[in-house]
Structure formats: C-alpha cells, structure tokens
C-alpha cells in the first residue's frame, strides 16, 4: 500500500474553511501536527496485509435495519422555534446565503 502524501498546513486550512472554522496561525500549526499524528496512526493500519479480509461497511455485522412507514409524534413548533437564535414567519431566520444550495 502506498503511503499518502503528508498532511500540509494548507490541507488543514482548507478543511477548516469547509467547516467554517476560523483558526489562528498558531492553531493551524498546532492542528497540522496533531492531525498528522492521527493520520499516521491510520497509516499503521493501512500497512497491514488485509488481502484476506473482506471489506466491512459497519462495525456491526448487521444489515437491513428498517422501521415501518408509520407516522410518529412531531415536535411542538413553538418549542422548536424557541430554541432558534432568530425566527421570522414561523421559519428559522439564518444569515444571508451566497449562491444556491449545492
């Protein structure tokens, strides 16, 4: 298995931007080091010969967990909206959005 390219400071800045996290220069340095260690740990697993092991999608060997299509109680709207920072017209009011939904 080929080793992935080492994690860079730019990678961390990119991921932080995607998550809308504002990081200082010091934090970027700190997290680049810490995240690199996490990835190194994953690389240890990747180094093992697992050619005889079937891929798994989940830690539990369980499939087809389903529920019947039956309506269950919903939340009270006033209670729901009371928890929102801003509300207008019974809707959640959120900051201006640039562009359209992905």
């Amino acid at each position, binding site marked *: 298995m080929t080793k992935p390219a080492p994690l860079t400071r730019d990678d961390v800045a990119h991921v932080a931007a*995607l998550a809308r996290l504002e990081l200082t220069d010091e934090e970027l340095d700190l997290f680049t080091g810490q995240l690199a260690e996490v990835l190194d740990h994953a690389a240890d697993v990747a180094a093992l010969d697992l050619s005889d092991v079937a891929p798994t999608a989940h830690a539990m060997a*369980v499939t087809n967990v389903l529920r019947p*299509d039956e309506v269950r109680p919903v939340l009270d709207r006033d209670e729901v909206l009371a928890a929102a920072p801003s509300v207008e017209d019974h809707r959640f009011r959120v900051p201006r959005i640039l562009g359209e939904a992905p």
Partner: protein
Amino acid sequence: MKPGWEMVIGLEVHCELRTATKLFCGCPNLFGDEPNTNVCPVCLGLPGSLPVLNQKAVELAMAIGTALNCEIRPSTFHRKNYFYPDQAKDYQISQYDEPINVDGYLDLPDGSRVGIERAHMEEDTGKTTHAGASGRIHGADYSLVDYNRSGVPLVEIVSAPDMRSSAQARAYATELRAMLVASGASDGKMEEGSMRVDANISVRRSSDDPFGTRCEIKNLNSVRSLGRAIEYEADRQIAIIETGESVVQQTRHWDEDAGRTQTLRSKEDAYDYRYFLEPDLVPLVPDGEWIRAVADTMGMMPAARRSRLVDLLDPAGEVSDSQADQVATVVDLGLDDLVIAAVANGVGSGLALARTANEAATDAEAARKVDPDSYVALLTMEDSGALTATQSKTVLADLLAAGGGDPAALAAAKGYEAMSEDSLASAVAEVVAAHPDAWGRYCSDDEGDRKKMAGMLTGLVMKATRGQADGKAVAAELQRLRG
C-alpha cells in the same frame, strides 16, 4: 439547433417518494403544511438523534429500479458534508459509491433507449426562502428555512448521456414521470417539486468527436422549461466555441421569464463534500425474495400498457400517428382500462379508443371514477347504431357528471331514439328531392365534387332530423340511392 452540431444530454431527476413518513424519521411526508410543523429531533439534526431507514421508501426505490430494468444490489449510505442551512445537520445522507439501483434503461415511445447509470436513495433538504430587497437569491439580506421537507425520501435517477435532442430529453422526462406515477413511487408533480429535473448539456460537431465540456442546468420546473433551456444552452455553447473560446464547466440556473441560463458557480468553486460512510446506518442488502415481492405488487408500466392497446387496434402493431397519440393520451390519463373493458364487450377498438381519448379524456378525473359497466353500455349503443356519435357524446357528458347510470335511460330522457330505417330513408329522400343541383353533382363522376356534396347533403339531413340521424347511416343511404 444550429446545423453541423450535435448536442449531448444527460438528465438527473430527483423524485420524492410517496411514503407516509420521511426517510429516516416518523415525521409526516406532506407537501404544503404550515412551516416547521412536521419536524422532530432527527430531521432537525438535534444532538443524540439517530436515523432509522423507512422500509416503504426502500421498497419504492426498488420498484423504480425494477421499472427501469436496473440491477438492484447491496447498498450503503454516506454523509455528504456541506455548509448550507437547508440541512440542519450540515450533511445530507445519500447513497454514494454503492447505490441501490445501477445499470438500467428506459425505452421511449419513439423506440429509442436511454441508459440509466444509477437510481439511488437520499433525503430531501429543507426549503429556504431568500428574503430581502430583491426577493431573489442574489442580493438577499437573509434567508428563512422551513424543515418540513428536510428528510423527505428521494430517489435520484441519473441517465447516461444518451440523448441527442431537446425533444428526446422531453420525451424521456415525460416517460419517466409516467413510469414513476404508474409504479406508485411518486405523484410526479413537477409544479410542486416532487419531480425535479437537472440537465447536463454539451455540444460537439460530430458524433465521432469526444464529448465536449458540459454545463449543468438547474431550476427546470416543467417539461417545457427543460426543452427551452436545452435549446438555449446548446446555442450559447455553440456561439462560444465558434468564436474560438472554450465552454467553462459550470452550474447554471434557468430563468424561465428571461428565457436564458445564468451562471451559478464554476468548477473551481465546486463543493468538497468529504463523503464518508454514515456510521449510524447499516448496509441495505435486499435478497431476491424481497425484490420479487416488490415487483409482484407493481402494476403494468406505461410502455406495456400502450402496447396492450396497440395490440387491440392492430395485432401487427401498425397504427396511425393519430391513433398512437390517442393511445398515449389514454395511458397517460390512466383510462386504458375503460378501452380494454369496452373492447372485451365487443365494442370496436377504434371507437372505444377515440371516445376515451377525445371525450372521456376531457374530464379524466370523472372518467377514472365512472362505472365501467355504464361506460361500456353507452359505447355499445353507439357502436350498434342505437345512438349517433353526437348523441353518444352528449350522453357521455351526463354519465361522467353522474359517475355512472343507465345510458339508455339518459338517452331516452334527452329524447334520443335511433331513427328507424324507414324514417331515415324518407328524410334522405326529402333532402335529395329539395336539392336537385347538389344531388346531381353528388351523382357525377368528379370524385372531389361528390365528396363535397356528400358532406353537404349529410349535414342537411342532420339538420332536418335535428341530429337524430346517424351520419354513417345517412352516407350509406345516399350511396344506395345513387346506385
């Protein structure tokens, strides 16, 4: 489309499934309710909530896969991460590299076949309204979010880039919609957003060339918009290439009022979704028995229903264009069982189809509910000559309004009685005697003249009998008198 160019089209269709509840929680799946009244911790993304897959949604997805001739296979769910308030939890649960349905196809009425790459399950997003000065996306001051739609089950059907004209793309969307409705998977209402179409379009000079750079068009709210947007977009791309420039891969928004597409975002700011397996859901592994059980509950698909009607008209499959249109209309409106019932009871197939496609179809909702026995009885009366076409149509309107009834009684109430052969013959004879010129020209050898006069004389007989005479019988009597 400019000559010397070919367009290449692939469509992505999002279809909301007709379930009672959402995909991962028990909130009602309903359109048009008061905002934020069908929400719970799961579809609001509240901490500690866990999704549980809706069995009915899975079965409708399998029904779609079956109808599209797909391989139905083991599948998993992923989180598609993005930062946008239409999903409260900041990711959408969607099938990614292991979708439930792959490698199918849809046959169109014109005989062409469009490949289906995949038809996967995912959850719908909430509805955002952009408030502010302009009321539009650009320049909005803030947005309002209603999560009633968040978590509604969707199947996204991705076609292969197999379509070559806007007409073919429209035919695909129309046929797919009919199939979705017939399979019970969706109500197919484009105007309510339960079926949404995005189009991928590129152009090239020859079908031997590789595919050109494509653009994706969003916001197509009707089959008509789809056709217009494709034509506009193909022309736009051709104009760019002909000036020596290159098409930039981007997502564009169709503006129905302006009749053009506008850029939304280019490939450079394409989203980085960081897909990973949804740890709160386990794999879905339908076995053959389950897949067969779902298939057994499905009705006939539109293509099969059309060919069933065509077989009634002509076992060799040779029908006129206008009859093919009638067949399409009848199947589209779900009235084909009326035609089948009429023909099974001895009514001529041409008459049964024409009355259903032309008259019953004008009030399809009533026609779907009408008592089939009454309907068949009426067509039998017309077919046997007991009622003229005009009388039959009038009685049909009453029958549809009442939801059924005895057509003979309805006809009698209107004073419709079939004319006896004797009174018809004397009515024809009187008209002939009163119009010697017309009769003379009818008897001439001039084919065109004879036809014209036949129409005129028949009209005069109809007038004299106040519509009670049967047009066909009048024509036959004229023919007989001429000798």
